[in-house]
């Protein structure tokens, strides 16, 4: 049925009012926070103060200052002409569906490797895995999707580590993934141990040994770690602290602080989930302005412990990210990550093709009662149109 636009009209108006209202409030909040930030930057022993506050309020997430002043804005050194290996990983998945003729899950992972200043064509490695079919209950379905997602994340890190470790020692390697460095899995509370997670640790450990500069790149972050740190410092009401505020984000704050190409100070990420992780994978982060004078664009870069202790590595990472973003200056995003995504994405036609291959195999083995669910057939008939090549 078509959308009831008539009903929407007034609702759009109300929504717009709300948004504008929020923006106004946000502006006011931002002014306040900016002042607080500047004041905090001048506080001595800021890190101990925040740590003490965290001990008082267990279970909170926020940023913990490290060695650099929190109001630092740092430019990258010039590494032009240096050979640097940039690797990026991305994956895509097909979730099992009981409505199709055959339910199957699929992970497609791609690693994009480019050797800057090496005058070589970048290489692409892709691996595709079919997942075993699970039971068909609703709960299991949810778990299946989550499982598939977890499996994909782990596969990305595993493959990234494998390919990064292949590069001979002596040449710096920057290995990127999209999104937070920690597995999404860890963001859920009360998770039981999962064997896939060990795979993840193993991958990180391998990269640590080889001193590979690995990072998670988050575009348009909605994180409030630094603001939460400020709130922690300024606010003594524990109840208040546990309420997440959404008026202002760290990116709003740092868009006033960082000039184009500058990074913020390094912060340690404190959260209950991160605390469960081994020491080697303790996460730090910094914000990076990849925009221009007229339009600042703040991204968050998460790095593991071994990278955060290496200023030279951070600097090289900083420079490399700016270089990667510079290839698509009209829409800054690391080129290698974009290409990894392109190579990983499973097109609708490919999904259909894989399904047909499975069906053909089953038919050849005598299975003849395959068919879509009535619901799916009806949906297909309704005229779902697909763009030629992309989903």
């Amino acid at each position, binding site marked *: 049925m078509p959308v009831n636009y008539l009903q929407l009209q007034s609702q759009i108006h109300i929504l717009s009012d709300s948004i504008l209202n929020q923006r106004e409030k946000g502006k006011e909040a931002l002014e306040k926070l900016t002042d607080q930030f500047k004041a905090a930057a001048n506080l001595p022993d800021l890190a101990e103060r925040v740590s003490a506050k965290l001990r008082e309020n267990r279970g909170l997430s926020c940023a913990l200052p490290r060695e650099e002043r929190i109001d630092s804005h740092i430019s990258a050194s010039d590494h032009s002409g240096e050979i640097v290996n940039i690797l990026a990983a991305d994956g895509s998945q097909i979730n099992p569906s009981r409505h199709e003729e055959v339910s199957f899950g699929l992970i497609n992972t791609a690693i994009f490797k*480019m*050797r*800057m*200043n*090496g*005058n*070589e*064509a*970048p*290489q*692409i490695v892709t691996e595709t895995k079919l997942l075993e079919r699970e039971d068909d209950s609703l709960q299991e379905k949810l778990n299946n999707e989550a499982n598939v997602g977890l499996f994909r994340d782990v596969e990305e890190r595993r493959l990234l580590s494998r390919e990064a470790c292949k590069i001979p020692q002596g040449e710096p390697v920057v290995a990127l993934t999209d999104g937070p460095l920690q597995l999404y899995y860890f963001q859920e509370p009360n998770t039981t141990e999962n064997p896939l997670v060990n795979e993840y640790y193993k991958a990180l450990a391998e990269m640590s040994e080889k001193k590979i500069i690995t990072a998670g790149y988050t575009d348009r972050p909605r994180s409030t770690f630094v603001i939460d740190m400020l709130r922690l410092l300024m606010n003594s009401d524990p109840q208040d602290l546990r309420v997440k505020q959404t008026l202002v984000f760290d990116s709003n704050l740092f868009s006033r602080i960082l000039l184009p190409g500058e990074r913020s100070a390094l912060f340690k990420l404190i959260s209950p989930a991160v605390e469960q992780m081994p020491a080697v994978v303790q996460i730090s982060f910094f914000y990076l302005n990849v925009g221009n004078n007229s339009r600042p664009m703040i991204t968050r870069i998460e790095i593991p412990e071994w990278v955060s202790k290496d200023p030279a590595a951070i600097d090289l990472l900083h420079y490399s990210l700016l*270089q990667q973003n*510079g*290839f*698509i*200056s*009209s*829409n800054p995003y690391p*080129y290698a990550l*974009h*290409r990894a995504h*392109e190579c990983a994405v499973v097109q609708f*036609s490919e999904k259909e*093709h894989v399904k*047909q291959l499975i069906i053909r195999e089953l038919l050849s083995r005598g299975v003849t009662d395959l068919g879509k669910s009535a619901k799916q057939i009806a949906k297909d008939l309704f005229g779902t149109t697909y763009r*030629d*090549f992309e989903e």
Partner: protein
Amino acid sequence: MTDTSMFGRILSSNIRECVVGYRTSESAIPPFGSMVRIPVSHAQQPEIYGLVTDIQIEEDGFLRQLATNDQVSEEVMLDARANRNVPVVLRILFIGYLENGNISHLLPPCPPLTLDNIYKCTNAEITAFTSFGNFGYIRHILKVTNVPPGELLAAHISQAAKAQFADNHFGWTERAINEVIYLMRDNYADLLAILGAIGDADISLDGEEEEQE
């Protein structure tokens, strides 16, 4: 498209031609006039032989963004050339088919419905098809409407001649041109245009004589 298969989607097809969309790297895009083979569906169905009569590179927004940059690194350029799959739409004219090991120059009994793979023909396949019968398939080429037939013929004859040489068959080019002249001699202007295109192509007739000597 290399010797490995490439798959895509049939966008439209009828008994004379089909339009295929797929992604491939720039270096693997089949050249204009090259011969391809399309399996219809199962092993028992005929495989269709066709000629690439049009190649459309669809717009790639990402490449457009790259192109607007002041500076593009060498690696990015190499990546675009060697790795990047561009969306390509091929128009393929049917010129015959292969059924149970037998070649026919007639239009295929049914068009492809789904596309699994599309293969670039090997020299042996080109030679076998173009040597079969008496150039009956050329009449399909002459009726093509979306490109000048002369250009298509010149490209095809150029490719087929090379395949014939490679397979140690001589004299084919002369016979092919003779057949074209025979079919088109009632139409002076069109024939001269076709022969002009053939003359411009890298097609050696003298080379065949030298080989025979």
